[in-house]
């Protein structure tokens, strides 16, 4: 009888200790997700801060493209004001990215603008920011994936329910912005002067093939 009591007590202690460890791990993961989201927010703000200079530079060469400038300014304001869930932020990013692509497509029509040092520097900085945003997004989604797996798996789901740990949302790019084979489409239907334009090699917000956006081949045997 005494031995069975010890066994039962030991099992209870193990369960309690395991539960505490699992709860603490949930807390760590949730804080890591918050930190990862803060990184995304930093990169997004960094990108938004580039837009006024970019618009001013393009305006100096293509002042008549007013609708494009208004679109990107309006989309930027909406994206900047978006707060709350990653899904809401991702939804606000969609129109902003589309407007930004349109702005860069307009710039392709003006060789003098493309050679402008300020424009080139802004473009390089924008590309760098997109890369950093992509990395921050991958890091955030990786942490969310691990956290959600634990929330939904047994037996950690029991601790999750007791501790009110809910699944987190991923931060994903809108699929409607993707074209065939991942190449983004640019809508010229609203432009007043639809001249033939070569799409940019690395569109903002989308991983290019050089960045590994294409699906990986199967591993060699």
């Amino acid at each position, binding site marked *: 009888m005494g031995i069975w009591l010890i066994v039962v007590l030991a099992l209870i202690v193990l369960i309690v200790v395991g539960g505490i460890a699992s709860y603490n791990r949930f807390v760590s993961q949730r804080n890591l997700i918050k930190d990862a989201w803060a990184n995304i927010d930093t990169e997004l703000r960094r990108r938004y801060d580039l837009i006024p200079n970019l618009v001013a530079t393009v305006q100096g060469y293509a002042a008549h493209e007013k609708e494009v400038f208004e679109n990107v300014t309006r989309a930027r304001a909406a994206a900047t004001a978006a707060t709350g869930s990653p899904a809401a932020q991702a939804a606000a990013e969609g129109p902003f990215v589309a407007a930004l692509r349109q702005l860069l497509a307009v710039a392709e029509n003006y060789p003098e603008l493309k050679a402008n040092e300020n424009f080139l520097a802004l473009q390089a900085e924008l590309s760098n920011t997109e*890369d950093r945003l992509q*990395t921050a997004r991958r890091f955030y989604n990786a942490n969310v994936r691990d956290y959600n797996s634990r929330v939904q798996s047994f037996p950690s789901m029991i601790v999750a329910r007791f501790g009110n740990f809910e699944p987190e949302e991923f931060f994903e790019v809108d699929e409607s912005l993707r074209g065939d084979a991942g190449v983004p489409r640019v809508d010229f239907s609203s432009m007043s002067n639809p001249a033939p334009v070569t799409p940019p090699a690395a569109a903002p917000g989308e991983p290019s093939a050089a960045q*590994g956006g*294409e699906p990986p081949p199967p591993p060699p045997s």
Partner: protein
Amino acid sequence: MALLWLVLVLVVAGTIAAIRFRRRGGRQRALMVLCDRTGVEFSALDPFNDSNFLPFRLFGRGDTRGFENVIWDRGDDGAVRVFDYWFEERDDDGIGVKHDLTCAVVPLPFGVPPLAVVPRGMAEVTREPTETRTVTLDLDAFNRWFEVRAADPRAAVAFLDQRMMQALMRLPLRVAMHVNEDRMLLVAPSLEPGEMLLLLEASRAPAKRVPPVVASLYPPRPAVGPYERRWLQGSWSPDPTSARPNLSELGG
């Protein structure tokens, strides 16, 4: 009778030592011949004075250690090189265990925290003994092949994008990759001479595929001076807005 046993033990030990010496010498000669044929520089002893200062704890392990059979491309400064590294660890009873490894060192234009990408099932001796966290990436095939450990998981995610993971899966040799500060280290159990030349050629591929964003997020360590302290605090970069690696400096 005891004297006979002693003589027998000495003869056996001497024979084993002679066989090992001849085998080692034969391997070295084969490597020398291969290097001569392919135009690769060879040195039986380590001619570079920075090997002991490479930022990897592996090169401080053991009670005795040594670098030998160093190869590098002719006309190159030896920044990218392959060499044999051995170290011997003795236990409390004085019994030594010797480990023979082949390593490749490649310079990188940034400074990341310790990161290890090790093929699953690889021998423990090749692992860097650093405190790290296991990182799971977004390519399942890669996660099945490799175990990724990093002091900073964000650095691992930045370093290992799709292209980089594919490059590592396509390496022709089974090697562990360690990255610390501005050096990449590829480690494998002692390789044959032909495989060493293959490693020299293949070691450049991962370095060329490092995402440019890594240099922006983890700038290279500045020279000793007023900026070094801020770099150590993680708050300084020479040009955080356009820091891109000049991979052409790696040659190949």
